[in-house]
């Protein structure tokens, strides 16, 4: 990691919980909840890229949405530059959203189809009042230049663009308000590899140019390896491992991380790897397994794992893992 010295914490999440109520069969039954995110804590340093990875339903997108307060978290605290943003009122929150932007997976669904690119960018700047009216046109052209779109794009509608170009518009809109932190929720997942490469290069370039901080949510481990400084692995609403990218990919400690890494098909037939194939499916987050949530699929599970929930503890510098037997398995 580059910013090891005097790292400034930009975002701090403490004991974040996000439960969604589910319909129960009977009025008299106790209420059931989907525990999408269940007590997670982490920090995000200024200028870095932290990725959240995991399979569907692990809570990675929910975490992103909870930080932005798109869904109000059930419990926990979120500090942005030291301020507790969960207690912000609407006005303060709106102001904060200028610094906290988001890029979604499907740019077509998140761009208004009846607005031209000009209107889309203009609206963002008008709401946040970042650029005075007469200067907006120049700013828009500048933004298009940053994301690699021609000036003619201004008068066109989202449907006239290809998927990759639409994602560029989404990025331009996020940049329009001079944000500090951008949450990228599966921002390149819907794109073909050659286009995906273009967008990843663009995100890296913009990060260098504007000193942006990224919270990068993705299920694709190859993409995550390319873009991140640190990686956080989630499973069923819990953090199982957080580490610097290199440590996580070269010496993963949690059995789930190991299985996840070994499941990725590698586009090189010369590499022969030992593959850990997990048995069964991810259990339901409504009634998650007791103890360690991974014990039902873990090849090393013992009686202790069924009963006791492992805490997230530090093993090695900046390498956190929640497994009772991490030291043993590392050997």
């Amino acid at each position, binding site marked *: 990691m580059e910013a090891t010295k005097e790292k400034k914490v930009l975002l701090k999440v403490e004991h974040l919980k996000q439960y969604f109520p589910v319909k129960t069969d009977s009025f008299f039954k106790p209420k059931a909840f989907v525990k999408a995110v269940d007590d997670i804590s982490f920090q995000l340093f200024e200028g870095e890229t932290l990725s959240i990875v995991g*399979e569907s339903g692990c809570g990675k997108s929910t975490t992103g949405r909870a930080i932005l307060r798109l869904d109000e978290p059930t419990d926990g605290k979120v500090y942005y530059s030291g301020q507790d943003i969960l207690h912000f009122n609407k006005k303060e929150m709106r102001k904060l959203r200028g610094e906290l932007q988001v890029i979604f997976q499907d740019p077509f669904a998140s761009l208004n189809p009846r607005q031209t690119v000009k209107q889309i960018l203009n609206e963002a700047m008008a709401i946040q009042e970042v650029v005075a009216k007469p200067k907006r046109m120049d700013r828009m052209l500048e933004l298009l230049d940053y994301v690699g779109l021609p000036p003619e794009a201004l008068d066109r509608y989202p449907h006239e663009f290809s998927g990759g170009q639409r994602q560029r518009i989404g990025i331009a809109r996020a940049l329009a308000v001079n944000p500090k932190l951008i949450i990228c929720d599966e921002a390149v997942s819907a794109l073909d590899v050659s286009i995906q490469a273009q967008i990843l*290069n663009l995100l890296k370039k913009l990060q260098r140019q504007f000193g942006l901080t990224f919270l990068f949510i993705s299920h694709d*481990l190859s993409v995550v390896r390319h873009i991140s400084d640190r990686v956080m692995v989630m499973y069923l609403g819990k953090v199982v491992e957080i580490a610097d990218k290199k440590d996580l990919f070269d010496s993963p400690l949690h059995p789930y991380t190991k299985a996840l*890494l*070994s499941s990725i098909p590698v*586009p090189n*037939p*010369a590499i022969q790897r030992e593959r850990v194939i997990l048995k069964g499916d991810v259990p339901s987050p409504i009634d998650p397994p007791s103890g360690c949530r991974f014990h039902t699929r873990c090849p090393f599970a013992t009686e202790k794992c069924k009963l006791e929930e492992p805490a997230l503890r530090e093993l090695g510098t900046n390498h956190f893992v929640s497994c009772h037997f991490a030291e043993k398995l590392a050997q």
Partner: protein
Amino acid sequence: MKMTENNKPILEVKGLKTHFFTKRGVSKAVDGIDFTLQKGETLGIVGESGCGKSMTSLSILRLIPSPPGKIAGGQVLYKGKDLVTMSEDEMRKIRGNEISMIFQEPMTSLNPVIPVGEQIAEALRLHQKMGRKAAWDRAVEMLKLVGIPSPEKRAKQEPFQLSGGMRQRVMIAMALACKPEVLIADEPTTALDVTIQAQILALIKDLQTKLGMGVIMITHDLGVVAETCDNVAVMYAGNIIEYASTEQIFSNPKHPYTQGLLDSLPKIYEDQEELRTIEGSVPSPYNMPSGCRFASRCPFQQPICYQQQPELMEQNDGVKVRCWMYTDQWTGQVEKQEAVK
């Protein structure tokens, strides 16, 4: 090219063209492709969205929505018989029986209100003329074969009661129930998580060895190709542009598009500062350039590339490639060897 055992291919596609006749004009989704599949071989067809890989698989089984789609030319020879000219009755005997298919999204391919065991048994009763009881027993046996726990119970459940991975297993059980000679898997794991994907790919491979069928694996994921396929056909804008063994494709890609595709992948085992990209975008299927379809995006382009489309030509090492760079007409500054790297 890797050849398996006998040289008599089980499936042979020759000059297949599938065109769509729409108000906007003719869309040449598949425009003259050739490949062969041996018994026991896994052939990968790769390419990005819109390259025609899925249309190729639908054309083999004659499942093209028609109109507007139409097989405009070519042959699909299955054990020497041409599927393109076959009557619908004969075709129905082959579809799902001798050649079957797995689709990407199992939820839309399964009937949502019929128990999954019943859906598998239906195929057996129709194709194999099995009795009700025998077909049901075989369906349960198939579910067991694809690794579904407590198959007797699961067979009576409807698709919504199963998880995504299990539904895909049911699809595979259904596709394999009649012991087909050819299995076409169209993005079979794209909708699944990586840990489940690993399970399903291992399962397909395992069943292939047991049943000795030929598999066509259609995917956009080069990792899946590297791990499962013997040979690979890379498609671009309705054409096959490179056709070689998996080792050759990955160790020594010849076509500039294949090279670009491999370079643009983020690598899981190395660090790169910047990814290489392919400039520009795919030409519209309604308005294909007359020359090489990749010419405008190609770093090695020459005037000849815009004038005439190259043929898919076999090289000394058996690799087939559709590029002027590997012909005698090539006059470019870039030496062949340099282009190959």
